[in-house]
């Protein structure tokens, strides 16, 4: 069922057009990375503040309250770009173990929010008055750091898995193959199907 969903979504006009452009994927990936710098930077600083390592000049409520809205914008950018990339190659991603692991970890982030929201994030002003940072808060921060770092690493891992080409129906036009064709002559024939362009430096 998931596989047929993946095949359907990548066949829609929008994602087919996205996949057809050689520049779209690297540009969307760059914006994903930019989002990681903004969002990831704020997540790191928030968690390090809760653990008592960074931004100790400012109160916990100052950091939590002021990062709340910017973090939502950052996450929106990262998730939008992520959906654009995954949607355009949905079938390839479906077979990708790191992508599956990443989705499970994202589900764990939601669980983390459900478990810790009331005790930690809902009322930061109460944390300012507490004599020391409670253990629950530090656990939440440490878990959040671990989860987001793992998600970033899984994301990087996605590009290293060779897709099972015999099972994939998508036609991908890659910048690399276009450059190669221009450099090396007609080894790649015009109109021939070009497949798979995940960057693998060890290839």
């Amino acid at each position, binding site marked *: 069922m998931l596989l047929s969903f993946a095949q359907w979504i990548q066949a829609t006009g929008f994602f087919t057009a996205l996949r057809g452009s050689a520049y779209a994927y*690297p540009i969307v990936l*760059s914006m994903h*990375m930019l989002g990681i710098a903004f969002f*990831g*930077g704020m997540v790191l*600083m928030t968690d390090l503040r809760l653990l008592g390592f960074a931004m100790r000049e400012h109160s916990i409520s100052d950091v939590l309250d002021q990062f709340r809205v910017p973090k939502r914008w950052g996450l929106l950018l990262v998730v939008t770009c992520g959906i654009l990339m995954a949607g355009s190659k949905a079938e390839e991603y479906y077979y990708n173990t790191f992508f599956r692991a990443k989705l499970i970890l994202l589900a764990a982030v939601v669980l983390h929010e459900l478990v810790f929201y009331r005790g930690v994030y809902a009322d930061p002003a109460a944390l300012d008055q507490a004599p020391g940072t409670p253990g629950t808060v530090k656990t939440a921060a440490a878990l959040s750091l671990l989860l987001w770092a793992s998600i970033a690493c899984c994301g990087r891992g996605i590009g290293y898995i060779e897709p099972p080409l015999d099972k994939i129906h998508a036609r991908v036009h890659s910048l*690399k193959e276009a450059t190669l064709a221009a450099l090396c002559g007609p080894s790649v024939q015009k109109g021939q199907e070009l497949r798979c362009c995940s960057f693998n430096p060890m290839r």
Partner: protein
Amino acid sequence: MTASDFLGLDFSRGFDRLAYRHAMLIENPLNSSEYSFPILECFHIVGFALSIGTIAIVDFSLLGVGMRRQTPAQLAKDTWLWTLGGLVLMLFSGLLLFSSDPDMYYLNWPFLIKMVLFVSAVIFHYTVHRKAVASETTPPNGKLVACTSLALWAGVIFGGIFIGFVYPGLNLGRI
């Protein structure tokens, strides 16, 4: 005895650049495991999230977005060490990544653009940016400085991603 005899080098058939490159790539212990490159990339990502993330927090504060209860100077005072730590992590993991195949990077145009932008961004950060942030009153050119800083760092990220999507001018191939 000539110098090449003394060094045990045989140039009689010319210097085989590709064979030399091949030998150098095998010499590098990073190329002996297929995991070293992706693991280094993960450190590279955490490094730039930390450095560019903290720089962006200060930049957005200069633009009047985000952390509005603190001045940019206060934020910079609290984050500069993390910025520096992130930069060092990013730089060292980047040097190791580069060492995996220097010729490829040297011939890769996004990499060259990235290096120009990176050096400019670091110089800008520790000169103009630092001065603008340090002033206790709102600097008149604060918004321009923040936008320039954000644009430079965004350019570094775009350059980094495009490295993997183009072939170098010469297709040297990989081992």
